[in-house]
């Protein structure tokens, strides 16, 4: 607004200025002020343009959005205004020069000069005429006394037709004065030079403009000193009017000549003055245009800048950005559209956030469910990379599977040896399309584990084969319990059904022997003796067998304690020291500690040694190698006990069933020895294997988990972790 005010004010002052140039008297006096005012206005404009330019340059350098476009717009606006204004200015200038010059013409000048001369010539005639009559007039003034002079002059005024007559004495003192105008008391003074010239003896005639009454003829004539003594040379001063018509015409010629001459003199100044006004108009228009260019470009660019900033804000994720609406034009429409867009984006992103939260909560819910499942759950993608696992899966497998999320299953197999078998079984199963179920035995630090695995391939919406989900349960305890229950039942029946009749059988056989031995002849008696002894022996054997079953079935509570495995082995093997038996002990110096029931381990050792001895029944040399070894395989610490005999070895046909009850190749024994061994090993979370050696004999290997120096009742997982840290 103040800018518009300034522009209007400048325009008005320019208008006034141009009027003043054309000599309109109204603004004549204020001309200087007007110029100053306009210059000040122009300075203000220049200052404002300078500020705008400075700001623009700064914005441009800072790379503020929209500044480049503003610069371009300003440049275009300025060009659009400067070029036409400059053209108009140029032609105006030309026109002005020629226009002003066209006012002046040599012919006009000459004619005016001629007119002036003509006037002078015609007035000259009148002057000459007057000069001619002067001697007679002067004659009448000769010897006139000062007192009479006034009267004479009055008479002469009438007779000569002069408007003013005065007689001057010495030092130009006025002796007498007479005027046609009765109000006039002082004569029109003549030029001192003229008076001096006349005193030299000549006369003076000339024209003199008299204020308000036109041109007059002035005559100064010397009045010679008369015959009266003491009189000096006097001067007669006379003013004669000229013909009214001639006066008017001559006056008019004079004034026009003066005006023309003045204008001619002022021609250059006039041009410069017009040039000044025109230049001011030009500069005002130009600066206004430039300023308007800045102003409008910035106004035009403001919404664009806002839009750019808004877009940047949206790009940075600030969707709440709303721009000020810029008018009711296309730009305003654009801004409104932008605002609508950001609002919608904000809504959409809000919805997306909400649905993401929903998904998150569902996922958390699913994870909670999975975490609380007693089964281990693991999903694999189609490249057999682990996708998700639940905590129970990690617990069952004894590995923190979360670290392997997103990594191939093989990585896990590489890092954890005990899982190698598990994974090698799992991999072909996972590629199956249909549902599968498999029992997998796993041996880890926490012992032998039987896992019931079930798996299926997930089918997504497109019906394509997607990920695999594997659910597995630790059924070790269940299997153990089932087996124990089954064998317990067998043992109970045996004890009940078989053991009871054995004693009467034995007693009856003994009674038979006792009663009929003496009554029979020697031959019969010896046969009876042999038979009854056979019965008694067999019954004894059967009793032994039944007792063994009873032992097997009976599962008293384990009394776990920390044991030095080596000490125990030493103690048991000492009992079998015989001259014919070569017992070779090779026990690990690291003294593995196991958490075990001492009585059962002793039974285990006895069974193993007995088994070895029995295997070598018919051999020439009796030789047993007992060795323990602390193993540290894939971070799982356990002790390995090997008992090697040099006997027949296991029969090939029983391969895989050595540890099941009643699998025996020996002539004697209950067939439960190795079954009990297996039972005890499993009770201690260990593993037992048996194999024939290529050269001679067989070896039974037992692996039992070792405890470290920590407390016995620690979690196996933690024990494992601690064990791993040991060197």
């Amino acid at each position, binding site marked *: 607004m103040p800018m518009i005010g300034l522009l209007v004010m400048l325009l008005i002052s320019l208008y006034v200025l141009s009027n003043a140039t054309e000599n309109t008297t109204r603004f004549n006096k204020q001309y*200087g002020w007007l110029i100053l005012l306009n210059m000040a206005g122009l300075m203000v404009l220049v200052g404002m343009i300078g500020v705008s330019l400075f700001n623009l340059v700064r914005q441009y350098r800072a790379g503020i959005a929209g500044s480049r476009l503003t610069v371009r717009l300003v440049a275009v606006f300025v060009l659009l205004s400067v070029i036409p204004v400059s053209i108009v200015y140029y032609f105006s200038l030309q026109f002005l020069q020629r226009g002003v010059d066209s006012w002046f013409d040599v012919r006009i000048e000459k004619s005016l000069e001629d007119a002036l001369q003509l006037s002078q010539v015609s007035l000259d005639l009148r002057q000459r005429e007057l000069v001619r009559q002067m001697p007679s007039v002067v004659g009448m003034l000769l010897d006139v006394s000062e007192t009479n002079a006034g009267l004479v002059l009055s008479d002469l005024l009438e007779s000569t037709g002069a408007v003013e007559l005065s007689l001057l004495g010495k030092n130009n003192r006025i002796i007498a004065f007479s005027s046609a105008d009765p109000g006039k008391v002082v004569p029109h003074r003549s030029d*001192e030079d003229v008076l001096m010239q006349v005193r030299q003896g000549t006369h003076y005639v000339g024209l003199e403009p008299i204020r308000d009454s036109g*041109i007059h003829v002035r005559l100064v004539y010397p009045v010679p000193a008369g015959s009266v003594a003491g009189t000096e040379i006097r001067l007669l001063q006379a003013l004669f009017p000229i013909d009214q018509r001639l006066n008017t015409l001559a006056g008019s010629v004079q004034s026009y000549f*003066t005006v023309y*001459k003045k204008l001619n*003199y002022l021609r250059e100044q006039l041009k*410069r*003055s017009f040039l*000044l006004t025109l230049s001011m108009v030009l500069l005002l228009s130009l600066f206004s245009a430039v300023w308007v260019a800045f102003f409008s470009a910035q106004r035009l660019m403001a919404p664009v800048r806002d839009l750019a900033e808004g877009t940047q804000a949206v790009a940075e994720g600030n969707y709440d950005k709303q721009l000020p609406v810029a008018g009711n034009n296309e730009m305003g429409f654009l801004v409104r559209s932008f605002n609508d867009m950001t609002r919608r984006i904000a809504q959409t992103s809000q919805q997306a956030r909400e649905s993401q939260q929903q998904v998150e909560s569902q996922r958390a819910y699913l994870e909670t469910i999975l975490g609380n499942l007693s089964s281990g759950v693991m999903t694999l993608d189609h490249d057999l990379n682990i996708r998700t696992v639940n905590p129970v899966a990690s617990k069952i497998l004894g590995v923190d599977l979360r670290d392997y999320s997103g990594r191939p299953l093989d990585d896990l197999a590489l890092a954890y040896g005990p899982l190698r078998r598990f994974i090698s079984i799992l991999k072909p199963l996972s590629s199956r399309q249909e549902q599968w179920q498999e029992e997998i035995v796993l041996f880890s630090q926490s012992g032998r584990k039987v896992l019931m695995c079930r798996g299926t391939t997930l089918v997504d919406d497109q019906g394509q084969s997607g990920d695999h989900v594997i659910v597995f349960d630790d059924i070790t305890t269940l299997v153990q319990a089932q087996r124990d229950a089954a064998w317990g039942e067998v043992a109970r029946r045996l004890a009940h059904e078989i053991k009871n009749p054995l004693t009467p059988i034995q007693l009856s056989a003994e009674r038979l022997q006792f009663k009929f031995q003496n009554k029979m002849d020697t031959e019969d008696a010896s046969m009876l003796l042999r038979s009854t002894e056979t019965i008694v022996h067999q019954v004894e054997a059967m009793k032994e067998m039944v007792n063994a079953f009873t032992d097997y079935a009976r599962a008293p509570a384990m009394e776990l304690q920390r044991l030095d495995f080596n000490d125990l082995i030493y103690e048991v093997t000492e009992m079998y020291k015989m001259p014919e038996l070569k017992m070779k002990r090779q026990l690990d110096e690291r003294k593995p500690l196991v958490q075990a029931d001492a009585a059962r381990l002793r039974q285990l050792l006895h069974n193993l040694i007995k088994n070895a001895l029995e295997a070598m029944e018919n051999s020439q040399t009796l030789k047993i190698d007992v060795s323990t070894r602390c193993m540290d395989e894939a971070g799982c610490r356990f002790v390995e006990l090997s008992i090697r005999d040099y006997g027949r070895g296991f029969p090939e046909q029983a391969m895989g069933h050595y540890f099941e009850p009643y699998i025996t190749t020996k002539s004697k024994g209950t067939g439960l020895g190795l079954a009990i061994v297996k039972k005890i090993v499993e009770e201690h979370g260990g593993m037992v294997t048996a194999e024939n050696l290529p050269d001679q004999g067989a070896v039974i290997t037992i692996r039992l988990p070792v405890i470290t120096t920590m407390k016995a009742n620690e979690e196996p997982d933690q024990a494992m972790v601690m064990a791993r840290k040991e060197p």
Partner: protein
Amino acid sequence: MHLLSSKRGILETAQSLLLICSSVWLTPSYAEEMYGLRVFSASMHSRHEMLYLDAQLDYDLSQAAIDALDSGVPLTFELEGEIFKPRKWLWDKSIFSFKQHYQVAYHALSQQYVVTNISSSIQNSYSRRNSALLAMGRVNDLPLVEKKSLPVEGDYQVRLRISLDINALPVPMRPWAYINSEWLLASEWYVWDLD
């Protein structure tokens, strides 16, 4: 020739500034020529309880001014005077001030230089320019003020100066006259004590 006065209007200050600026590039070719206005002498005398001014003014016109005069441009001069009480810390206290305007013009038909006292409408013609300027420079018995209207006590001073009235020039000449030293014709203040 021109004095920066504290009591001059803004316009004249601006003129002076413009003059300073322009003097750099508008140095006239006949700069050596002496020209300028001067108050040669001035005095006051009283008669019949009235104060009269007598002064001798010196009009040495620049060539530009003479050319303009001979081309029919009337030149107007302003005689301004002031009776004031000088003060040390404040602006001088003005008691009475006056202005007189004289105009000299060339009359082509009669080939006379006509001097007019605009204030009193008295007009005289002179055949020579110098006579006209000389006559214009003689200020005799110019009645100013009644003695009784002035305060009796105190020391007073009078100052007088003569200057060319640029605002009376034809408009086209003014912009250039404002910034041209040849046209900025003004005497310095002539100051004397009032008895």
